[in-house]
């Protein structure tokens, strides 16, 4: 909406009609919803909320980083009709970036590891990405560079006239997005009551950005990061041993890092779907499991879990981990 009605936008969501998809992107005036967790909260004395990032227009928390990075490239004149974007991404960032880029008239090449499921690759194509699939890593070894990150860097370096690379793993705009939007949204939605923040770690844009903002406002806020156990296959997440790839990880902003058996992520996601009515994805399940330990221990507080995306993309992954889902699906 136009500037003259900007004031109204903030208050009158009832009558708000968005002028384009970009207006739908989350901000303090247009926050993603926060919902109380009722049946899966182990302590009544602890108020627990989930911030549903799947309500963002392209379906995940990555809308924020993607939009911020795209605007930054645009603002600096780095992209145009001829010079598109190349980015290593296995999913959510790619979907957001592809849709945003195409809606603004740019190309996006998404570099993805071969092991990414077909469904996700197709989703990227549907959202408008050109795909470049990288053969799987030969031998995961300490310090071995990530194949898709390196290939994307190669494109940006060898074909700089055709591609700019935002690089979500190193781009401070990914952090800035959360300092400018997610942090202030949570602050306002909890009316400053927040005592615990629960997040997962991928590029670490969310944890670093939200923690930075909240720490400024209220130094006592506890920042708890939940990571999957080694060998995990939870989309979007990284285990500490894999975090080297992210330059945005700042250990000093995190009070505790909990490691959770990754199989529990799938179980808890299913519980969220079936008892809270929240169709939450695996990384939400992981966050919930870690959160429950802390809630049981600390008993009192006001906690916010940042739920990155919903379950729709993950039916096949769920089946792999919860084979009992197969039951009754055919005659």
């Amino acid at each position, binding site marked *: 909406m136009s500037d003259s009605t900007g004031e109204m936008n903030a208050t009158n969501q009832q009558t708000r009609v968005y002028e384009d998809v970009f207006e739908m992107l989350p901000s303090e005036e247009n926050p993603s919803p926060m919902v109380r967790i009722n049946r899966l909260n182990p302590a009544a004395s602890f108020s627990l909320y989930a911030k549903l990032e799947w309500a963002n227009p392209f379906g995940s928390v990555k809308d924020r980083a993607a939009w911020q990075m795209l605007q930054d490239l645009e603002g600096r004149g780095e992209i145009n009709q001829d010079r598109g974007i190349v980015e290593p991404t296995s999913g959510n960032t790619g979907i957001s970036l592809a849709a945003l880029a195409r809606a603004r008239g740019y190309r996006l090449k998404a570099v993805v590891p071969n092991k990414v499921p077909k469904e996700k690759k197709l989703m990227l194509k549907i959202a408008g990405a050109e795909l*470049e699939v990288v053969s799987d890593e030969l*031998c995961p070894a300490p*310090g*071995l*560079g990530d194949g898709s990150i*390196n*290939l994307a860097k190669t494109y940006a*370096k060898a*074909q700089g006239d055709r591609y700019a690379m935002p690089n979500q793993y190193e781009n401070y705009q990914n952090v800035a997005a959360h300092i400018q939007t997610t942090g202030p949204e949570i602050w306002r939605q909890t009316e400053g009551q927040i005592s615990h923040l629960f997040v997962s770690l991928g590029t670490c844009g969310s944890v670093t950005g939200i923690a930075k903002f909240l720490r400024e406002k209220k130094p006592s806020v506890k920042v708890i990061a939940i990571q999957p156990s080694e060998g995990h296959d939870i989309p979007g997440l990284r285990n500490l041993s894999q975090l080297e790839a992210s330059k945005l990880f700042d250990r000093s902003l995190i009070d505790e890092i909990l490691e959770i058996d990754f199989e529990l992520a799938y179980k808890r996601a299913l519980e969220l779907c079936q008892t809270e009515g929240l169709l939450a994805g695996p990384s939400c399940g992981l966050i919930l499991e870690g959160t429950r330990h802390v809630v049981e221990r600390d008993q009192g507080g006001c906690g916010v879990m940042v739920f990155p995306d919903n379950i729709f993309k993950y039916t096949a992954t769920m089946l792999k981990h919860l084979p009992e889902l197969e039951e009754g699906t055919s005659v």
Partner: protein
Amino acid sequence: MSEFAHPEVLLSTDWVKEHLNDPNVKLIEIDVDTQAYDAGHIPGAVGFNWQTQLQQPVQRDIISKEEFEKLLSNSGVSRDDTVVLYGDNHNWFAAYGFWLFKIYGHPDVRLMDGGRQKWLDEEDKELVTEKPRVTPTDYRAADPDWTLRAFVPEVMEVSKKADKNLVDVRSPDEYSGKVIAPPGMTETAQRGGHIPGAKNIPWSSAVNKDGTFKPPEELKKLYFEEKGVDPSKSTVAYCRIGERSSHTWFVLKYLLGLNDVKNYDGSWTEYGNLIGAPIEKSA
């Protein structure tokens, strides 16, 4: 600081940058496939595909002398050129290429320390997509030097007699038999474990985080003191398909200067499947 035994075979990325226009220096990128090469490579470099150009799948063998000659002739390489190899995955396939060039007697072949990754990460290093214009040569290779390559009978004997160093460069889980191959790999074996008598020294222990080789003292300490490789004895190195072991073969023979080092390129995908060959497990 002490030096490597053959310091000339290891080149820095800076050296390569300074010699990009030297007509006697031929750059070759060797990767598992050519996807990365096609996206961008060092100016002037030709690209070799390890899977399709350096081995013969029908024979399950390294390429023949004739095929090697044809490959190098078509790549514009002459016998008196300085050949500089580099590649992905911390130079595994480049090290395999180095071994192959030595087998066919190329006089001056070298490795760029840190490989493709280091070049990519350095701001001042350029990548291009144009393939170099090559003038074909009439390359003549030497007869293969099999003293660099171990075959099954020798490996069995080394294992039985325990009179030589036998080095398994795979990950601890492959060595112990917990896994047969790293996750997702198609080339496997019937059994998991290692050749009896082999010491487990993963290839990665020889490199720094950035993929460059560790300094001489550290390598000596690691192989000779900590892991008990006896430098006065002959050595056989193996892995799963012979590429990681080429990397360690390079370290032992050229950086540490051991006299007699062989790469057993049949490695675990051969030995692990052999009838009548005993294995050890430590899982």
